[in-house]
């Protein structure tokens, strides 16, 4: 993964672990198109019938780029995860401003803090249990 310690080993690792625990299929650094070095979203998760594109950002500078990448994959929900609430507020403002200019019509974009993103996954992607099968004689 291309990010730093906080990006890779704290946020991305925890989100991937949480999604996998809920039976999700997680792809790290998923390219948005074919080619030699295509742009990639940080994480693409298929979980509970939902396709989530997750981008982790520690600044608001690359949010426009993230929206472009998320839009290219056509997921059900695009999550932009930021480390703390102050950044998340700025991120939301940026997304709102960009959406006013270039609306991402087909994808629902959520800008969340790391904790809120974990909670979102817990709430929207409940754990599925495997049916207990016995050998009926």
């Amino acid at each position, binding site marked *: 993964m291309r990010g730093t310690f*906080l990006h890779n080993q704290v946020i991305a690792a925890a989100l991937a672990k949480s999604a996998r625990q809920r039976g999700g299929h997680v792809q790290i650094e998923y390219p948005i198109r074919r080619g030699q070095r295509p742009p990639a979203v940080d994480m693409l998760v298929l979980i509970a019938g939902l396709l989530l594109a997750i981008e982790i950002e520690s600044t608001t500078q690359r949010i426009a780029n993230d929206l472009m990448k998320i839009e290219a994959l056509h997921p059900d929900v695009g999550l932009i995860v930021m480390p703390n609430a102050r950044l998340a507020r700025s991120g939301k403002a940026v997304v709102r401003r960009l959406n006013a200019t270039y609306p991402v019509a087909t994808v629902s974009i959520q800008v969340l803090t790391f904790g809120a993103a974990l909670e979102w996954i817990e709430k929207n992607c409940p754990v599925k249990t495997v049916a207990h099968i016995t050998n009926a004689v």
Partner: protein
Amino acid sequence: MNNYERYDKFFERWDWARAHGAANDRLGRKLQRGLALLPHDALLRQLAETRIRQLKQMSKAGHLPPFAQAQLFDGELVLGQDLHGHPIRIMLDWLCSGLFTVANTGSGKSNLAYWLVSQLAWLACSTWLIEPYKIQFRLLLPIYQRAGKPLIILPWQNWRWNLLQCEGCDPRSHATSAAELLVRTLDIPGRAAVILRQGIHVLYTKYSVWKGDATRFPTLFHLYEWVRSQKDLNAAGREAILDRLGAFLMILTPACAAWTRGWTPQDLSRHSIVFEMRGASESIRTLLPQSLLFSVFHSRIASGLMNGPLELLLVIDDAQRIFSDHTTVEGGLTPLDEALGIVRGAGIGVWPIVQTTIGFSRRARANLAMRTFGRLGTHEDLAVMGADCGLDEEQQAYVQHNLKPGTFVGQVGLGAYTHPFVFRVPLAKFPGGVKEADVELSQAPLRELPTEFADELAKWSPQPSVEVTLTEQKPATSLSEMEFRLLRSIVASPGKSISHYSRLSRLNGKRLAKIRERLVGQGYLREHSIALKARGRTAIVIEPLAPAIAAVQANPEN
């Protein structure tokens, strides 16, 4: 022959009518056969006279072209239709002797190229299409896909090019050609040209190219660096090279030309490729295709010439610049002109397509056996092409006024029929456009070829640069036992909140805060503020830095 024959010259007139298509249909063929058996049959003569009269009337009205019907009935390729709608065929191997097309803008040159190249998709022959300005040949991709033959679309930026790579050919002749090409294209003065040749020689020695090592080759970037490092050379010559070559390499970028092992012409000649030069500077447009032609010619010549079948057709659209009539620095024959005369036996066909003959190398034209021309813009072009194709005055007058877009005059220098003829090319229609994703995907076969990038040149710039980096803060060597305890717990499970380490290292909050502050100051740890929960205060997450990991490894827990 009876007495009347000498007066009415029936058979002479019938031959003329046949040459203009009078015996092309079913009745015409029957008439011809009948007249051969019964030359004096009144009915047959009457029918033939009707046809002759019609053609004479058309001729007087100016509707009949003064060209005989082309007797080109055999061959794999259909060049077009004659004016009576019959196909004109040529042999595929005739293309080995070269084809030359001149016509001014909008007269259907590209359409003629599409028409012939789309037929080549179904034949066992690779095609290279070099486009200096347009990106139209990529429209052939669906046709090639339908034929089950890959067509690679290669923009110049994606090229893995090394001018000094001489794999499969003699390094001496290659070095001479490469130096000559650089000198001519970049307009390098005499003294600088000598330095350039010397540089190539030194680099070939350094990379053991003279000894036959064909694994790695110097690049133009290495040549530039060598010239820059030789400060005792002639100052004016050195500066001339640095200015011109530096500017050229800046535009070319290391991604395209810093390959110590690029694609070889032998590898490339197995594929059909569209080389797109759109957006390139004029020097790149000249140098890249010419170097490609040299490499392929030299490698073919080195592998031996044996009059084989056509293996590779080079179609060069807007080839004016590549086949320019400029002579070499010494005033002699350009290497490209020289090579064109030799490659006929190597199974390579060259097809330059130009808008005018003005400025086109006359030596190159002499070695292109098949000629076609469409609507021409200048009297000079008409005179030159008319004379080359052997047109008489009447034919020249016709050509001047009657060539519409898509109609060409051709002359084949091979085979039994070498008279000029007029032909029409059907308008090629292509299904839709080609997406960028398809273009990238088409390059996959080339990416599998063995290449090697010079990593040291990845951030090359003509101005020498010094990379300034912050030296990492040296941590103090003496750490207390409590500090080690905290470091060990952090290295064991990094990226956790402070409270987690407080429990793990059995240190109370106040003391831990002090130790943490000290370790952060000494460069062992880094703090990150992060919201681990949806609500509430943000937590501080600790990242162990390299010194912390090294310190823990040096002092493992007893």
